[in-house]
């Protein structure tokens, strides 16, 4: 049996109440840092009278030959680890042992890797920037020549805009690639190179929950900045979800396996192009900007999923 530290919150309901309401007996949220989003999810679950346990991913200890049951882990698990690899590996074990995890291992695997995401989007016919991958500096320079300057170099794994670099000429490319070579990190030797899409200094984040769009928001880069990550100071404002955007976002979500996802798109002259789909989504800014209770929608989806 897997040994996890389960700390019942002040969320338990009287026995039978969840049955009467046809709700799952128990929801587990696996976290490694309780952010605004986790607190919002806990609050939403409490309002819906869903019995919820928090499981600290940092103290979890899982046997691959163990037996796992809903008594320990609940009827459904919401994976909320901020550490991509930690969450992914926990989900791998729990899902393989027959438990339901949102998002699924496969969706998390694809979304956590920009190349895998691009491949899934391209395969599904979702508009996405022209992208190359190369594994040496020489090959990366060749890819940049083919794609044309300016371009963007990104790590395949990473978030919050870390190490995402605009490359405006060959000299800059050589400098960035040389720095990467000096970093003792195998993942940084995978060069993910993308065309620089002509766009306003913002992108559009569309939050998809299951088969529905919950909300869309603009994320505008701060003055003088280029990246549109909220972690880097971007501001969030409401964005109307056009039929075209909705269609693209839903197809992008489906392409990576579906679930609770944040589809990031740029407004190119030819319409929206999706550059990223996020799996363990942050939605504080989108909730504040729009007033939409995204946490509530997520809990509703999780409940629905647990009944399947």
């Amino acid at each position: 049996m897997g040994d996890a530290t389960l700390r019942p919150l002040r969320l338990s309901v009287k026995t039978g109440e969840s049955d009467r309401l046809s709700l799952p007996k128990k929801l587990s949220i696996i976290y490694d840092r309780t952010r605004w989003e986790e607190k919002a999810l806990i609050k939403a679950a409490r309002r819906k009278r869903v019995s919820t346990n928090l499981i600290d991913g940092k103290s979890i200890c899982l046997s691959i030959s163990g037996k796992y049951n809903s008594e320990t882990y609940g009827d459904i698990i919401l994976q909320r680890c901020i550490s991509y690899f930690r969450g992914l590996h926990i989900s791998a074990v729990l899902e393989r042992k027959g438990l339901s995890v949102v998002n699924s291992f496969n969706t998390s695997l694809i979304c956590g890797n920009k190349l895998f995401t691009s491949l899934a989007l391209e395969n599904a016919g979702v508009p996405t920037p022209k992208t190359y991958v190369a594994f040496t500096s020489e090959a990366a320079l060749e890819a940049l020549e083919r794609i044309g300057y300016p371009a963007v170099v990104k790590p395949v794994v990473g978030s919050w805009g870390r190490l995402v670099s605009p490359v405006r000429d060959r000299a800059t490319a050589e400098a960035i690639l040389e720095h990467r070579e000096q970093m003792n990190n195998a993942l940084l030797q995978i060069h993910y190179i993308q065309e620089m899409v002509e766009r306003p200094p913002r992108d559009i984040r569309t939050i998809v929950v299951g088969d529905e769009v919950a909300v869309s928001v603009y994320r505008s880069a701060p003055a003088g900045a280029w990246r549109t990550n909220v972690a880097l100071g971007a501001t969030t404002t409401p964005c109307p979800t056009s039929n075209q955007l909705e269609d693209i976002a839903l197809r992008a979500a489906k392409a990576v396996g579906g679930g609770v996802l944040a589809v990031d798109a740029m407004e190119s002259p030819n319409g929206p192009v999706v550059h990223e789909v996020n799996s363990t989504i942050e939605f504080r800014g989108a909730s504040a900007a729009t007033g939409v209770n995204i946490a509530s929608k997520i809990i509703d989806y999780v409940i629905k999923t647990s009944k399947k």
Partner: protein
Amino acid sequence: MKCKCPECDGEITIPKDAVEGEIVTCPDCGLEYELTFDKDGRCNLKTAEVVGEDWGE
């Protein structure tokens, strides 16, 4: 509820609606701690993890 900062002995106020795993910061020295509760509901502080290269969405 209040806790003593293990580093500088400063007083850290724990919000009433605090949840397991939440990060609190010492107002005196600025160190960040992760909040845990023992079975009797008393709060404990452990040094928070630093941001990892795989952290994010």
